[in-house]
């Protein structure tokens, strides 16, 4: 994720996308799309681990804890599906 952040940052500094077409063209490159998917996969797994630890620290009652964890898991999966859908809809 660190590498991804640095690479995207460098791209925006040295070759910022100045139009919708240029931006879409960059994202629709296979290597960029795969990198975005891998990044979001890692990001969502990381968000699960991190927020799970936070919830286990502060939410003690078992029923509430289970509910909150389930909601979190559902939300993270939904985010993953959303990102995949965005990439899927880009015209090649």
């Amino acid at each position, binding site marked *: 994720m*660190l590498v991804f*952040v640095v690479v995207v940052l460098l791209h925006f500094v040295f070759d910022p996308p100045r*139009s*919708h*077409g240029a*931006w*879409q063209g960059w*994202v629709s490159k296979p290597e960029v799309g795969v990198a975005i998917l891998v990044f979001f996969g890692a*990001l*969502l797994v990381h*968000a699960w681990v*991190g*927020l799970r630890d*936070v919830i286990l620290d502060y939410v003690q009652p078992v029923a509430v804890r289970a509910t909150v964890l389930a909601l979190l898991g559902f939300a993270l999966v939904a*985010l993953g599906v*959303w*990102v995949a859908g*965005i990439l899927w*809809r*880009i015209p090649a």
Partner: protein
Amino acid sequence: MDRRPVFFNLMQIQMPVGALTSIAHRVTGIVLALGVPFGVYLFELSLRDVEAFEQLVEWVRAWPFKVVVVGFVWALAHHLLAGVRHLLSDIDVGSRLLHARRSAWIVNVSAATIALLAAGALV
């Protein structure tokens, strides 16, 4: 039963720099996670069509948006650097107190510097 006295007045506890770095790591993590849906929404807008892209460019030029961006840059920079520091501690690099304190300062100052650089780049 645990009857040890508990003293949790955060205004009066003098916290070592490592504690501040650690707490900030947790807070920035939560903030960044809450920011993800908004980031995905902006990502979707940027790719939807030309109008949405232009609208987004307009937003990015507005200063309230820039303030939020600088805030997230700080959160991300701090979270990344503090995370690397924790990973190094896990493999026993810089675990001794003197080094741990020094690296905590380095994390806090570097993250603030990166946020200032971002602010400078966006103005």
